[in-house]
């Protein structure tokens, strides 16, 4: 049936892999869809681990002066929870969406550099494994000269300096052992993965758009991918250098962030948040994109103010580089800087507000179909608004000096990153489920998932606002009974378990529907963008012929006209069009040449964690093996016969 051209006979020493099924097809794949799916599963796996860590934290805090966890274990758990959720869960889940959808949304056959794409995925996987191997190889202990009553257990031998790794606490003197090295080097490896995919996506969006897909016709999700890629490309180098310094401080006796040698601990804060604040938008903008796809589809109306939403997204990304010091209002920055960064932080509320109002404008007057994706998108707006408003209270610098480092902040950013990013992500997971698997998910279970999660989420993070204002500081292993904080802490813990339950419902739905779900039509939502004009599940070649895009929401306009009143009217030809599209999509008329799979991305990627271990164990041998793997991977990569087109 397929007319995919076989790879040519090769005269190279290495034959390119050719399996299409089985484990090797996944290990050697360069197909953006397979890579996207692998990103998704890997990220979800880490999401579960990060969730378990959160539950453990919540058990510890459910009563005052609790001893469920030791201090070392608690500190390791909150550090790993933050690091995991940010770098190993939300970022890669977003990467899963980018990978799977980006080429489909711009009508391309794959990303610009398919092998680089596979490389970023494998580097991410090895980075995640490297970071988590700290539980086996890592060590942690009391600061130099301090005493512990008991040995640090395996649970405590993980990074314990916080995901923000403030210096000098995260330095060798105050965080001895290798755990924080696993953190610094692990983030470095994960950063490389994200950087490579950023180059790839930027190039893809600029150069791989199908005929007629001008910039201002691109779906908003593609736009947000574009913005996120720029944010990654320009913020990751900063943290990479800062992490370099940390690694040198910890391993080679330098003192970039240590006062003793002339260094400056506050410089770390500046560098970290110069990356860290754009990072927040790296986490949330993909969800903005998803919601901007889901709302118009289920409202049966175009996005209200497309241009404004796109420019607001880029405005947020741009201003996001100028507000970093609002994480440091209580730190040693000057009064003028406090005022300046307070004001710039207020400014960022404006484009964010524009987005929210435009989303409301989109659903206003629509014909809302309340399927699960739509529920999550609506929930996203509701929850994100709360996070945004508490964010404005942080820009009031004096008020922020009361709120900073308390649970009020924890509440704020969970409303943004869970109520915002995660709700958006779940919306997207349900929305594109039929496209990816060719099956429908179970709507009832989906709705149960939504309501459980909404309730659990608000029970967990709503009271945290109050706890913070009542003086519960962050990263607190215990709180005194006299602080009277127990009641709401118990509620929070109950909420956390309700969230966990909702995740179980989600998993049941996913597994069941993927096996036994109803067969999905290829346009189940009567959608607007061109990824719905191809069969479900997506054929390996994506588009059998390159689409020629004539307008924004091209697919919708091929199905619908507008009458005099401006109401949508289904074209009489629409039904036949869908039948034709399915027929064409499954049976390409011309030869299709896809990029060949390759062994080398995984070979090259496997060298990086070895370099990490080499630093940690001070082993030249490991470094040599790592360099050999990287070089041989690169050599194979460079000499591998090129694929015959994209």
């Amino acid at each position, binding site marked *: 049936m397929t007319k995919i051209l076989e790879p040519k006979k090769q005269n190279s020493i290495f034959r390119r892999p050719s399996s299409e099924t089985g484990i090797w097809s996944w290990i050697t794949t360069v197909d953006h869809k397979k890579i996207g799916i692998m990103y998704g599963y890997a990220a979800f796996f880490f999401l579960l681990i990060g969730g378990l860590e959160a539950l453990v934290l919540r058990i510890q805090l459910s009563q005052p002066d609790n001893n469920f966890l030791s201090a070392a274990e608690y500190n390791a758990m909150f550090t790993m929870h933050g690091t995991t959720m940010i770098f190993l869960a939300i970022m890669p889940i977003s990467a899963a969406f980018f990978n799977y959808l980006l080429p489909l949304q711009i009508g*391309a*056959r794959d990303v*610009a*550099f398919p092998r680089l794409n596979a490389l970023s995925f494998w580097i991410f996987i090895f980075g995640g494994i490297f970071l988590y191997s700290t539980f086996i190889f890592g060590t942690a202990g009391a600061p130099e000269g301090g005493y512990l009553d008991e040995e640090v257990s395996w649970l405590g031998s993980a990074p314990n300096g916080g995901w923000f790794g403030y210096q000098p606490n995260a330095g060798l003197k105050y965080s001895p052992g290798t755990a924080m090295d696993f953190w610094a080097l692990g983030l470095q490896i994960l950063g490389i993965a994200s*950087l490579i995919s*950023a*180059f*790839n996506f*930027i*190039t893809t969006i*600029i*150069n*791989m*758009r*199908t*005929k*007629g*897909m*001008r910039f201002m016709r691109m779906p908003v999700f593609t736009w947000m991918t574009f913005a996120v890629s720029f944010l990654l*490309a*320009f913020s*990751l*180098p*900063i943290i*990479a*250098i*800062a992490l*370099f*310094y940390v690694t*040198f401080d910890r391993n*080679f*006796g*330098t*003192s*970039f962030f240590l006062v003793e*040698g*002339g*260094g*400056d601990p506050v*410089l770390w804060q500046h*560098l970290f948040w110069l990356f860290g604040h754009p990072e927040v938008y790296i986490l949330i903008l993909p969800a903005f994109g998803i919601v901007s796809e889901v709302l118009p589809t289920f409202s049966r109306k175009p996005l209200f103010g497309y241009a404004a939403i796109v420019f607001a997204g880029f405005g947020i990304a741009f201003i996001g580089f100028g507000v970093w010091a609002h994480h440091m209002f209580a730190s040693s920055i000057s009064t003028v800087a406090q005022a300046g960064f307070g004001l710039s932080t207020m400014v960022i509320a404006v484009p964010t507000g524009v987005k929210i109002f435009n989303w409301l404008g989109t659903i206003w007057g629509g014909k809302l179909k309340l399927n699960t994706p739509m529920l999550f998108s609506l929930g996203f707006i509701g929850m994100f608004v709360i996070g945004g408003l508490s964010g404005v209270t942080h820009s009031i610098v004096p008020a922020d000096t009361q709120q900073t480092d308390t649970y009020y902040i924890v509440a704020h950013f969970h409303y943004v990153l869970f109520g915002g990013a995660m709700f958006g992500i779940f919306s997207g997971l349900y929305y594109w489920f039929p496209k990816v698997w060719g099956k429908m998910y179970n709507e009832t279970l989906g709705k149960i998932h939504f309501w459980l999660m909404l309730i659990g989420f608000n029970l967990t993070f709503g009271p945290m606002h109050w706890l913070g204002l009542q003086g519960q500081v962050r990263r607190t292993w215990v709180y005194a009974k006299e602080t009277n904080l127990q009641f709401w802490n118990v509620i929070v813990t109950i909420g956390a378990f309700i969230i966990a339950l909702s995740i179980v419902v989600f998993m049941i739905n996913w597994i069941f529907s993927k096996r036994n779900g109803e067969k999905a039509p290829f346009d189940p939502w009567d959608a607007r963008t061109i990824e719905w004009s191809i069969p479900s599940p997506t054929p390996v070649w994506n588009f059998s012929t*390159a689409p*020629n895009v004539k307008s924004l929401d091209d697919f919708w306009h091929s199905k619908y006209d507008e009458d005099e009143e401006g109401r949508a009217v289904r074209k009489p030809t629409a039904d036949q069009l869908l039948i034709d599209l399915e027929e064409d999509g499954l049976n390409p008329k011309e*030869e299709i*040449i896809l990029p060949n799979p390759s062994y080398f991305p995984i070979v090259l990627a496997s060298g990086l964690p070895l370099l990490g271990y080499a630093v940690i164990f001070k082993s030249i041998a490991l470094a040599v093996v790592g360099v050999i793997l990287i070089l041989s991977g690169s*050599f194979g990569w*460079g*000499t*591998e016969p*090129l694929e*015959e*087109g*994209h």
Partner: protein
Amino acid sequence: MSTAHAYPHEDTGVETRKLGMWVFLSTEILFFGTLITTFMIFKGKDFPGIKLTDVYDIPFTSISSFVLLMSSLTMVLAHNALESDDQEKTRVWLLATAMLGAVFLAGQIYEFTEFYHKGFELDTNIFSSSFYVLTGFHGLHVFIGVVLLLSLWGIGQRQNGLTLESGMNLEFVALYWHFVDIVWIVLFTVVYLI
């Protein structure tokens, strides 16, 4: 990149791989930008101890800088030779470029050793640490460049020779090499002259 099966796309006029290279170099600017900015911050610190100005030898570094600059020239010559499809000359100029890069690296190693003898070591103080990390990071880039040049040279030895379209593309290596050279001009000014 073959034209026979070209998948139609909105034409931006920039070749995809070249575009990717430019994006890569723009993040490299941020890598070096961060290093240079922090270096300047540390340099301005009022901290007692040995400083770079106590150990450096400007004439020596000027010469090695000149060597690196010349390598940009030979790189251009290699590119020109390839454009007129002169395989022999291309290889010669590539090798010359790699050699000049290697001479620069040797100079850097010599310089570092001298500094170490004078008590200006990696972990001495913030001035020495930031110096070694900054120039070392650049040195690593030069090293990678030399490896790339030598592999190009190696590929050029094979039957088909080099082309401007082939996978290991001379043009990209040239872009990278010029970038590394320009960065050095900035570094030399910031680290040694200011």
